[in-house]
């Protein structure tokens, strides 16, 4: 090993960088499970115990894991499952069925998927894709025939659980939960959802059959923990990384990075904005991408850039690409919004406002004909900077385009910000935008 290390030590820097990239990207893209999810010990224990009882004792259970997006619900479950399956005999005993509310959009699809994942098709032959009713009867029969002590326990994992509640009659949920409450095949129904009010979605008889066990995953970590998490995410393992010196340098620079005031400010801002780990990962990923042979460590500037990139306002960016005429129209709309207090307006009104501006103040702009203005207006509409009030109704009524009512989809602050950044924006346009009344 040491020999290999010696041999590896003079590893070219490019090699090291690519190694780092691979390792960290895997980590940031959730392809690697951490040893143990952070800060959720009690939930981990609860879930672990629960699933273990199903796997080992054949006790039926149902549980919901609830938490906002990006708090590690799936991660927790995957960790628990990995740990559970590591135990011998559980591994061979537990059957798993993974469903996702976004994929199995109705019970028919879900039933087929369950049948497939339980490998029951070979029993039915061509019957698998029989009628919905047959599938249901078939599955229920299969589950009913089992009993606590002799059948292999089945773990149903319902991702986006709330979406299953929108299926017709909640048939699938009723049946799964009913099985979990009766002496049939032992099942554990694990639902993952980010909706806190998920129980209210369940019909009362379905709800009654649910055990009401809820595991809440709420991000409760403080900023210092957050910083540590950031550091842990970027940390290179001393022992397994091939090039020790590079690894040492990287980790040292990482420590320096985290102590940097500006970096801390960026992270704090990010932390204040959201505790979602996914968005943190995006931030780190963006900065990681800047690491290259010339720039072998993450520098505070990288992180700042990445943060700016991510927190930039999308609409403002859109406005940067507009022509002066279009920008003028947007400003005219802003004034209309002010005048009419957010009431919708049409192209003609915008055009009149624009003409008033031209007559009064402008000396840098030509007068544009209505068709040209209309073209610009349509472009804005395509960019969804403006939006018809009721598109369907307008089409139905065949209203003339210039009289179709629209609304501006921008906030004033966005317009002003865009104007600030707009290259070579005529001063009179800027003044017009800033003035209180057109």
């Amino acid at each position: 090993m040491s020999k290999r290390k010696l041999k590896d030590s003079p590893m070219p820097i490019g090699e090291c960088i690519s190694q780092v990239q691979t390792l960290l990207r895997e980590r940031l893209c959730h392809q690697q499970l951490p040893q143990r999810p952070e800060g959720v010990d009690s939930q981990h224990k609860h879930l672990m115990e629960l699933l273990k009882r199903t796997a080992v004792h054949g006790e039926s259970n149902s549980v919901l894991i609830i938490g906002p997006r990006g708090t590690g619900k799936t991660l927790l479950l995957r960790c628990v499952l990995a740990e559970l399956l590591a135990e011998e005999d559980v591994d061979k005993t537990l059957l798993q069925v993974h469903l996702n509310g976004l994929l199995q959009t109705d019970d028919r699809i879900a039933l087929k998927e369950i049948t497939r994942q339980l490998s029951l098709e070979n029993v039915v032959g061509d019957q698998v894709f029989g009628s919905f009713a047959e599938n249901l009867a078939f599955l229920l029969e299969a589950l009913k025939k089992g009993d606590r002590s002799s059948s292999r326990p089945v773990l149903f994992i319902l991702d986006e659980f709330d979406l299953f509640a929108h299926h017709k009659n909640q048939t699938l949920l009723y049946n799964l939960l009913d099985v979990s409450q009766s002496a049939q095949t032992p099942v554990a129904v694990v639902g993952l959802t980010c909706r806190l009010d998920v129980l209210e979605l369940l019909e009362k008889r379905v709800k009654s059959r649910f055990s009401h066990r809820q595991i809440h995953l709420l991000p409760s970590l403080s900023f210092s923990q957050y910083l540590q998490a950031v550091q842990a995410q970027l940390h290179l393992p001393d022992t397994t990384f091939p090039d020790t010196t590079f690894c040492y340098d990287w980790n040292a620079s990482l420590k320096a990075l985290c102590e940097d005031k500006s970096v801390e400010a960026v992270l704090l801002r990010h932390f204040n904005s959201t505790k979602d780990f996914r968005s943190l990962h995006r931030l780190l990923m963006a900065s990681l991408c800047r690491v290259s042979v010339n720039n072998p460590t993450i520098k505070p500037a990288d992180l700042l850039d990445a943060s700016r990139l991510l927190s930039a306002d999308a609409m403002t960016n859109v406005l940067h690409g507009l022509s002066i005429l279009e920008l003028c129209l947007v400003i005219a709309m802003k004034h209309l919004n002010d005048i009419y207090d957010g009431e919708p307006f049409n192209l003609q009104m915008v055009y009149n406002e624009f003409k008033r501006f031209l007559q009064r103040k402008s000396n840098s702009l030509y007068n544009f004909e209505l068709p040209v203005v209309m073209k610009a207006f349509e472009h804005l509409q395509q960019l969804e900077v403006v939006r018809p009030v009721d598109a369907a109704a307008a089409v139905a009524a065949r209203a003339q385009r210039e009289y179709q009512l629209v609304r501006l989809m921008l906030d004033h602050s966005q317009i002003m910000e865009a104007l600030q950044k707009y290259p070579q924006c005529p001063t009179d346009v800027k003044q017009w935008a800033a003035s209180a009344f057109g």
Partner: protein
Amino acid sequence: MARYLTRNRLRRIYKWGGLPVSHDRKLKTDEYDSLRISLEDLPRTTVITNGQYILIEGVDDDHPYVAKVTKLIESDKKKKKALVQWFARVGEVPPNKLKLLGREPHPQEIFYYEGPTCEDEIDVESILDTVQVKFIPAGAPFPDVDRQEVLYVKLSWNTKVFTVVTPEQIETAAATAAAAAAPRLVPTPSRLRPALPPSPPCSPALAAATPRSRAPSRRALPTPDPMVMNRAAAAAGGHGVRGTASAGKMAEAESMHSASKISASKCLSGKRRSCVARTPGVRKKLELSSPRKSLMDEDEGLCQLLDEDLDLDVLMVQRSATTLTHLMSQPGGLTPARKTSRAAGSWGSQSMKPVLSYMSLGGDSSPETALQDSDRASTPSRRAERASKEHSLGVLAEENENSPMEPAAPTPRTSRRKSAQLVSSRIRKQLSLLDDVHSDGDDSDEFLPSAKELRSSSDEEEEQQEEEEEEFCARLDSDDEIVAKKSKRGAAAPRTPRSARKSQASMRTPRKTPVKKATPTTPRTPRHATPSIPSRSLPARQPGSALEEARARLHVSSVPESLPCREQEFQDIYNFVESKVMDGTGGCMYISGVPGTGKTATVHEVIRSLQRASDADDIPAFNFIEINGMKMTDPHQAYVQILQKLTGQKATPDHAAALLEKRFSHAGPKKESTVLLVDELDLLWTRKQNVMYNLFDWPTRRHGRLVVLTIANTMDLPERIMINRVASRLGLTRMSFQPYSFKQLQQIIMSRLNKVKAFEEDALQLVSRKVAALSGDARRCLDICRRATEICEHTSLDPGAPGLVGMSHVMQALDEMFSSAYVTAIRCASIQEQLFLRSVLMEFRRLGLEEATFQQVLVQHQALCRVEGLQPPSVSEALAACQRLGACRLLLLEPSRLGVLQRVRLNVSQDDVLYALKAE
């Protein structure tokens, strides 16, 4: 399938044989002594007389019901009716009762049915055919014969216990009648015929008298007499066999021509009376599965017997009654007859059997039948004669039974009875057998031609017959013919196809595992195996500690020993179902109650008790079927599921509905009650409410025998969603399950724990009070307790002895389950999200509305950020925060494509938000 064709093609005509024998003024009914069943356009008829054993159309085509005709009447409405004494096939006895036998039931065994309340009046149109029934003394083994057509009676069955049937029991009526008839018979052959029906124990003898050809049919009845006389003579022992035999012959011959039936009818009526008296309102239970092999054994027996009695056969054949010429040839035939009679004397039972077998042939209405009729007839007459010789006429009936001859007599009698039941097919088979035998036998040589003649004639008639005959018989025929040329024993072989069919039929009434059995009935969609979750390699671990034990007991799925706190409801439902099952009527009940109040559990408990009761024979057996509105994809699937559970058939919803409709409106003479539990009734709602309508309409049918228990959550479901005609049929039998009170909940937990000491008293009380206050849902209560045991286990310092579940654990469990996570979620949200929520509140306050657009809130938000000294977020960031709150449903949002214009509402109370934010 030929049988279906024949059935469809021809209309059967039921006519009374002769004039009414008596008239009941009170009931305005006329009694007849025989019934002639003929097929349209065909010359042959089957004649059914009193005391004959008949097959009655039932639900199961392969196993028609067996009964003995006791009376033939015509009601004032010109309806032809028959009063019958039922016999139960093995399959009709509930399997659990069969254990009482203490032995394997003989497949061909039937039981004299003494059970209560079985309609004993049937429509003559349901009569299929005659059948042969033999009585076997209790101690005697079943004859080791492999014939299918003979049924054996050994025991009687009163739905509770099996008792030994004394020959008297079965024969009383018949015997009396026979005795009464005997005297007349002897002097006047013309009167012999009446004696037939009474033919001893086994009215089958009567059954034999069903010649097809119309003219002969009349005569056929009398024919038996000679044989009877022969036998009687033999029994008498001292008398010259020859004389008797010839007398019998003469009697027979005469009787064939004689038309007088008066004496017979008298006998019949006498017997009828006795029968009726014995079995008032007998009700038979319907059990479709029936013995498979029984027929074979008897076949064998018959064959053996045939050897001995070839002569007789031939004789019969000659008599085939259809033609006078045959009759002419009889004189020659007498010798064999004599022989038999001698044989009867010497080897009693043996010799009798052959006779019986002929009779069985007679059951068929073919010409052969006519021949056999004579045989059959003869047996009784013989008997009668014997009786007459030994006793005075008046006491004949009883004495006959007590007479020394009796010991030998029983066997013949039974066999005779059985023979009566024999179906037409048998005739042909035997004839063919005869042919074989004749070729070997010496005596038979002289008869051979006649036998052949017979055969040919029978062949000719076969075609017609086939049409005439019941499908049942027709099929047997064909079966038989195939193997007819085989050895006598081989005759059993053809049965196999039939037995296969039977097995299929038996599948139809699986009570407990209908689905499995269904498989064979649907060969087109073969399911290789029933689906199942694979079984685990290691057995599940059993609970170890007291807490684990408690947890296992508290699981909702564990079935408690009893259902406390639902005694009243239990009793009500029990009484309702029991009374309906006892009366054989139908009814509906509607059970409502919020989830988790034990509705389904109580009904299941009721059914369990009822099943126990029916096992113990306190109530008649019944089917239990359960469907659940939630467990089907479409309301119309209800039909499919009911049908499948009832009969194992698979069908489309429409077809299933039709089949069920037929089933519940069709009068099955021996139908079991069906108890149908419909859970989650509201899911069966359709726009036209057909499903509900049918479910509630079937129980109102006269022959429905369906008890429907429906369960739903809302008390006023009938009023709310049902149209009038449905609600009206549902009736007013309602029951409402109240949510459990805290005391009841406590009791439930206590009873579940059943002395396992795992909870502190206070803790239990807390749980039950809390749940009672919230929902009264027992499931909730149990779940909380279960969770509390877990918490207790985790928090205990000493994992070895976790101690009792205390208040703190329960509190924590309650907290986990009932506390809303909103407040915590708000506290855990990021600063920006919290600020956004706060700005939503501010905007609400400013607007005085509970709704604002994102844009409006954003303004507040940015202002707030400046106050707080934070960098205001960009619109995109604020929007993202808003969306995150929306995903958690802390906020309610419009679709996100509306961007800054989307409206925002709070999904939590403002107080909660303030509380959560303030506490920080």
